[in-house]
């Protein structure tokens, strides 16, 4: 498939992973109300396996409905090997969004949490286009926080994260792709296909 990839998690509740394009990591996720939820009472994750992501990639998702103690959101740098490691973005029912890292199954928030946007807002984590150890958090495309020096993980894939397995809590409308890096090689076919327009903004 081609990036960016999208997913609407349409299917039967409890299907885990949601379909063949997803690989469960660190407990895994299930379909819930044509969205996604976690499988257990801990940090859960999964990654999109149908494409290979660059080191600099992003993921977007919405938290649509949340019950107490539950949170949903995108994830990046989901390690595709044995490690249960990823960078998570968890929009919690308590009104805050918690960004952080899960390393070898052990989670650490990067800060005290940010005031969360309304349910249904697109949440995004992405690797900075210039510095691979800088992680940017956006809401509806607007940068809300920058995290410097997050060097533990590299590579990996875009995915989703969830805390808790509540069946009345779900996220939806995922997108994952590569971050555009300035100064890249412009191939003739990119111009032919309209993918490059001479730097017009």
């Amino acid at each position, binding site marked *: 498939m081609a990036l960016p990839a999208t997913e609407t998690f349409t299917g039967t509740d409890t299907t885990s992973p949601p379909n063949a394009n997803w690989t469960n990591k660190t407990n895994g996720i299930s379909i819930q109300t044509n969205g996604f939820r976690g499988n257990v009472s801990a940090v859960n994750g999964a990654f999109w396996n149908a494409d290979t992501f660059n080191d600099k990639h992003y993921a977007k998702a919405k938290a649509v409905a949340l019950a107490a103690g539950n949170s949903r959101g995108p994830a990046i740098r989901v390690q595709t090997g044995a490690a249960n490691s990823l960078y998570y973005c968890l929009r919690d029912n308590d009104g805050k969004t918690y960004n952080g890292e899960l390393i*070898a199954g052990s*989670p*650490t*928030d990067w*800060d005290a949490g940010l005031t969360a946007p309304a349910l249904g807002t697109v949440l995004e984590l992405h690797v900075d286009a210039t510095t691979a150890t800088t992680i940017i958090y956006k809401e509806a495309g607007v940068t809300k*926080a920058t995290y410097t020096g997050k060097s533990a993980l590299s590579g990996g894939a875009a995915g989703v994260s969830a805390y808790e397995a509540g069946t009345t809590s779900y996220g939806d409308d995922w997108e994952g792709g590569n971050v555009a890096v300035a100064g890249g090689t412009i191939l003739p076919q990119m111009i032919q296909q309209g993918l490059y327009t001479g730097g017009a903004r």
Partner: protein
Amino acid sequence: MTTRLYLLPVLHLTDPVYNVPKYLPHRFNPALAGLEGVVWAWVTYLLEDAGLLIADVDDAQHTLLLGKTDVIAVPPLDTTIGNATVRNRIRNILEAASIPADWVAVGMTYRQVVRTVICLFQFHNRAVARLLRRLWDGTINMEMTVSEIPAGTRDRLQETADELGLDYSGVTGSTTLRVLLKGMADQINNLLDPGFFRIDGAGLMLNL
């Protein structure tokens, strides 16, 4: 309110499993009375027991933290370490957290110390993410030489250096882990853009 920098303990909660800053508010761990609602951001010595944390505190809250024997309030960053007593205290605190610190010297600024510690964290944290466990797990300590540690750990350390583009050629079987980490941290320190030296999050930012 002032954004202040602290070195403080990390609590490793088990139910739920979460790493949280001691004394500060976290959704899974209540704050010390008087510190409720304090906004913070941090970088941790991954899976170990220490973190460098910035917090937006008032004078009373700062005094509360100063009163904790396991919390270090880092002085203004351009202050120099004035004497051997202060130097030794810094060394002891860092070493107690398994952070190599025999390089801390009188005349250094706190900014120099914190930057080097951040660079130590960078190498250590990438290595830990490759090891999938604590580095200082009770069987490995800073005085051990490279030849004394398990081959798997040795390989992960070299892979970490390679991945970060660091020169590992000076590391031999007789190199202690203390020297190895400091050597890698020094290389990172020399490679990094000054803009890298920052702790940020939750609307706070401290340039180091």
